[in-house]
């Protein structure tokens, strides 16, 4: 099932993507992206990467969908523009920039694809749209309905979460279903949280370990959307239910909703990361963040699950810090505490 007709031949779209104006380039790339969704995505991304690559410097583009559902929308802000036209644009611009800086400075990664890919974001997507997503080539943010959710650009960890989905697409390409999907979500939460801690210059004991803090309106009884410290406690309100995240594998069961519970069971791995980070101490991006990044970049495969992630993070910690180092032991203990034995 697909929504879009692709009347323009691919070679013309590719030409526009290479030679067109910035606006036309974005539209062509978006069309290529959607059409490639029915083909091999990873290959498509690799192919598009060469079209998207720029000078290797940070380059951000913000579009406004003006409450419609067409992507990318109207170009409203480009790299270097000093005055943002709206709070949505300012947040998407600043936070995607911070995320870019984080990956560059901490891991030496040059953007989403490690080849200088431009960071495209669309704000004000849909009418009262309470969500944010990564569509394979750009980040998309709704305003929220104002009743339950506030605007999705307001939390830096949400922006970093979406951008990290792009990184995962280019690296492990974790299948977005069941436990590999939960691992995909976990990686986005980990680096979302790390970008927030890096932005605030926080050590592990000062971090709140919440994802999407302040996203609920004051009418909802909830601090955040997820808690890595205490999965299952982020919210509890009749209008949205209770945070369903477990923190232990004993509570895992196969379900059909949410692509097999990718946003639910990510809580188990999130909690393992939190436990290990607290055990190791310091700034989480320096040691355990590096272990997770190398694991995502080099070790995981599309169908990897929590057990694979546990083994690989354990191995990487051994390579970086030594066999039986405190870091490696902390990681093994943390996975064990959430029911994943190495």
């Amino acid at each position, binding site marked *: 099932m697909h929504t879009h007709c692709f009347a323009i031949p691919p070679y013309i779209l590719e030409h526009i993507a290479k030679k067109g104006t910035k606006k036309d380039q974005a539209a062509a790339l978006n069309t290529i992206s959607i059409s490639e969704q029915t083909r091999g995505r990873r290959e498509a991304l690799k192919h598009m990467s060469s079209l998207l690559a720029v000078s290797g410097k940070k380059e951000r583009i913000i579009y406004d969908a003006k409450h419609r559902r067409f992507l990318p929308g109207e170009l409203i802000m480009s790299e270097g523009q000093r005055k943002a036209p709206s709070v949505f644009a300012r947040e998407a611009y600043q936070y995607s920039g911070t995320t870019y800086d984080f990956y560059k400075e901490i891991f030496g990664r040059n953007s989403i694809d490690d080849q200088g890919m431009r960071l495209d974001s669309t704000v004000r997507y849909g009418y009262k749209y309470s969500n944010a997503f990564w569509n394979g080539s750009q980040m998309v943010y709704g305003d929220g309905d104002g009743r339950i959710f506030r605007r999705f650009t307001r939390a830096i960890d949400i922006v970093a979460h979406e951008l990290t989905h792009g990184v995962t697409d280019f690296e492990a390409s974790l299948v977005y279903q069941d436990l590999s999907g939960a691992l995909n979500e976990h990686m986005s939460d980990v680096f979302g949280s790390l970008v927030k801690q890096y932005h605030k210059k926080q050590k592990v004991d000062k971090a709140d370990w919440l994802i999407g803090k302040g996203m609920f309106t004051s009418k909802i009884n909830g601090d955040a959307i997820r808690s890595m410290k205490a999965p299952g406690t982020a919210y509890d309100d009749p209008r949205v239910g209770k945070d369903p995240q477990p923190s232990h594998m004993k509570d895992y069961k196969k379900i059909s909703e*949410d692509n097999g519970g990718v946003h639910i069971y990510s809580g188990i791995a999130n909690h393992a990361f939190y436990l290990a980070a607290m055990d190791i101490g310091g700034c989480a991006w320096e040691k355990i963040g590096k272990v997770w990044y190398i694991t995502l970049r080099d070790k995981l495969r*599309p169908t990897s699950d929590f057990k694979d992630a546990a083994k690989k993070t354990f191995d990487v910690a051994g390579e970086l810090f030594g066999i039986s180092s405190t870091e490696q032991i902390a990681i093994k203990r943390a996975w064990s505490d959430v029911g994943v034995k190495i």
Partner: protein
Amino acid sequence: MKIKFERSGGFAGITNSCVVNSEQLSSDEQKHLQEFLRDVENKKTENPSLNSGRNDCFQYKILVEDGKKFAITTDELAMDPNLRSLIDFLETRL
């Protein structure tokens, strides 16, 4: 005709569901529903493939009971145009 509707996923991963009777639909929405059912019968629709750049998108399940049963799972980027307005309507009932 009874329609069971479920929305799950999205960044927040919150699942909501409702049951709607087709008599509650407007004539336009009933028309879209009929077109959708016809497509299902003619096998013109299929479930979206996995892992195709839809991270954090909403996932929808629709079960229509009208003597026969039709069920479909889709997401917001893979959606058939006939479904969009029907889902827009159903989302207001969540």
